[in-house]
């Protein structure tokens, strides 16, 4: 169950980052033009989060089922972000931030016994 | 891929009856001509693929639906319905004849 939430939250955050990296959507959300540097950072963050979600999924469930899990939650997260965005933009961004932060925290607390 | 025939068709969209016949003809070509080419390609692949017999038969069947998709889309992008028809019929017939000629080779284990 935790794995599903982590997967959904990470994929959701990665879509949010990738979306905000697009000039048009950045303008919609923040009313300001996005700088090239900021756009590049957002995009990189988005792809890395997505990759991290896949690695976690495969690590936990094996390459075949893990990839299916990741792919399904990846699509659902995208639909969730795109649906939330026009109705509740602030909540959509807040969810991406909190979800991403919480799942990173959960991951670190999972891994810490093996790390230290 | 679709640019030229697309604009080509747009112009005709006003002459509705003719447009509808063109659609019907291409649809029939994609379904029946497409199935012929697909069937023939699966038959030929069952003969030529470098694997054991059961693997050849299954792989050919798995690939056949990809072939059908590609062929059907090509028909709708082809310059004319007529051109789509004869290309499919010739390609299908050639592959089928080849497969039937080497049928015994296709039955190797």
């Amino acid at each position, binding site marked *: 169950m935790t794995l599903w939430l982590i997967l959904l939250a990470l994929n959701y955050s990665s879509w949010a980052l990738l979306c905000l990296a697009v000039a048009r959507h950045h303008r919609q959300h923040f009313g300001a033009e996005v700088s090239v540097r900021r756009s590049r950072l957002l995009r990189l963050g988005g792809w890395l989060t997505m990759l991290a979600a896949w690695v976690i999924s495969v690590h936990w469930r094996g390459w*075949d089922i893990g990839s299916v*899990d990741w792919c399904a939650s990846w699509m659902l997260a995208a639909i969730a972000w795109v649906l939330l965005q*026009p109705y509740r933009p602030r909540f959509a961004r807040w969810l991406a931030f909190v979800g991403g932060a919480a799942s990173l925290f959960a991951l670190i607390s999972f891994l810490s016994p093996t790390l230290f | 891929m679709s640019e030229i025939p697309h604009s080509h068709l747009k112009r005709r969209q006003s002459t509705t009856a003719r447009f509808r016949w063109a659609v019907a003809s291409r649809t029939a070509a994609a379904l029946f001509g497409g199935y012929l080419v697909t069937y023939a390609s699966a038959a030929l692949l069952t003969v030529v693929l470098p694997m054991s017999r059961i693997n050849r*038969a299954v792989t050919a069947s798995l690939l056949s639906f990809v072939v059908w998709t590609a062929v*059907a889309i090509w028909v709708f992008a082809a310059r004319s319905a007529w051109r789509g028809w004869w290309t499919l019929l010739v390609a299908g017939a050639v592959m089928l004849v080849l497969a039937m000629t080497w049928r015994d080779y296709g039955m190797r284990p």
Partner: protein
Amino acid sequence: MAWLHTWAGLIVSWVLFAIFLGGTLACFDKELDYWMRPALHQLAPGPIAMDAAATTLREMAPHAETLYLRPPSARDPSIHGFVFEPGKPTIDVALNPRDGTRIPPTVGGNFFFVLHYNLQAGTPGVYLVGLAGMLMLLALVSGVIIHRRVFKDFFVFRPQAGGQRAWLDGHNLTGVLGLPFHLMIAYTGVIIMMSTYMTAGVQIGYHGDLAAYYAALSSTPHPVEQHRLPSRVASLNKILHDAVQRLGGPAQYLEIEHVHDASITISALAAGNDEVAGGRRNLIYDGTDGHFRGESESPPAAYRTYQFLSGLHRVQFGGAAIRWLYFLLGTAGCVMLATATQVWIEKRQRKAEAAGLRSGYGLVRALNIAVIAGMPLASVALLWANRLLPGNLAVRASWEAQSFYAVWLLATIWAVLRLRRGKPWRELFGMTAALLLALPLLNALTEPRSSLLASIVDHDWVLAGVDATALALGLGFAWLAWLNTRPRKNVRRDARIGAASASSHAARPREKSA
């Protein structure tokens, strides 16, 4: 190619909608099976009566050579018996796992599964579904090629734009974001039945000998007949127990071959729920004394690929969570198809209004409502019929199915009659919502020991899940009905986002092709 995408249009969308909704519900076919068989609820703990079940099955099909028994699983506690005899209807019965007796019949969640692969129309239905699946594959690939622009508008959804624009956004949203799923489902869907649709491999490689082809696929050699009766028959209970030990996990089926011959052989196929491609290990036992003979070889590599692809489609792996994801993505597919028909209809609205009422456009609109709002209503009616029909009725299963069709027909008539005066969308969605929300109540009244409350107390999460899902879906349909009561242009909630996308919408050239 835009016309290929549009042409694969209305009627195919309706057929595909029925297939998609059936498939989405069939994600939980076994859970629905269980819900629809109250005789299985609150079973006393005890051993699994595989031998008694085999006896029942043998009495039902005295001449069958091969019997299949599916032992109880976490999703469905019944023993399922299957017999496939050429020229006779397939036997598929649920048996009581404690004494092997038959359970009062029901179509079960299996109804939706059959609807999904042949529209309840036998072999012609299998071909029709295959054709629809192929057309979906074509619509998806041509959709990607002609709508390359939608990838640029990946994150765009403008509900406030209203009318066709919003429907098209909704179609693109569910179509593009769910694209990997839809492509996979369409391709693996036609693949599953490939030996029916594409016979070239068998014709050329095996001279059309289907039996030889299947024999090559299954790596288990068939036993040689000895033409005398078996001296004794081994205990299936013991064999199942041994197989579970050796496999280190559950068995999916026991196959009993040569039932009436001394060469009787029993094999146990691993469930393999931890692999997408499903079980690969197959244990073989002697059917007379039950000793373990050995394990069959792995299936051929290409066939393993086939099993992987069909496994992706049938989601028997990875537990309930992945089935929920498929359920949600299947719902997204239903929305993609429903919005597609809506775009198709709105595009033609002006033309049809000019042509007047006799253009048949009204009928098309009514039929669209009948398919998209009527089928969910009929599906819930099936569950109601299951609880309302008396349990000892011999023809119960067929009455359940007929109530599904009857309600769908009534919904169609309703949509036709109410199209001009009433609001058939809202009314049918509202009825579906009411039936769904009242389903746990009906369940509690007719089967008090299976009620939502009782199943939560018993920790029976499968049973509680069906009732809880009915409540959640009921709220969803109530929301849909409520959406249809409001005038469409007043959806704007967030002024800033709305203004920004409205202006960018105006600046863009209108998309012509849908």
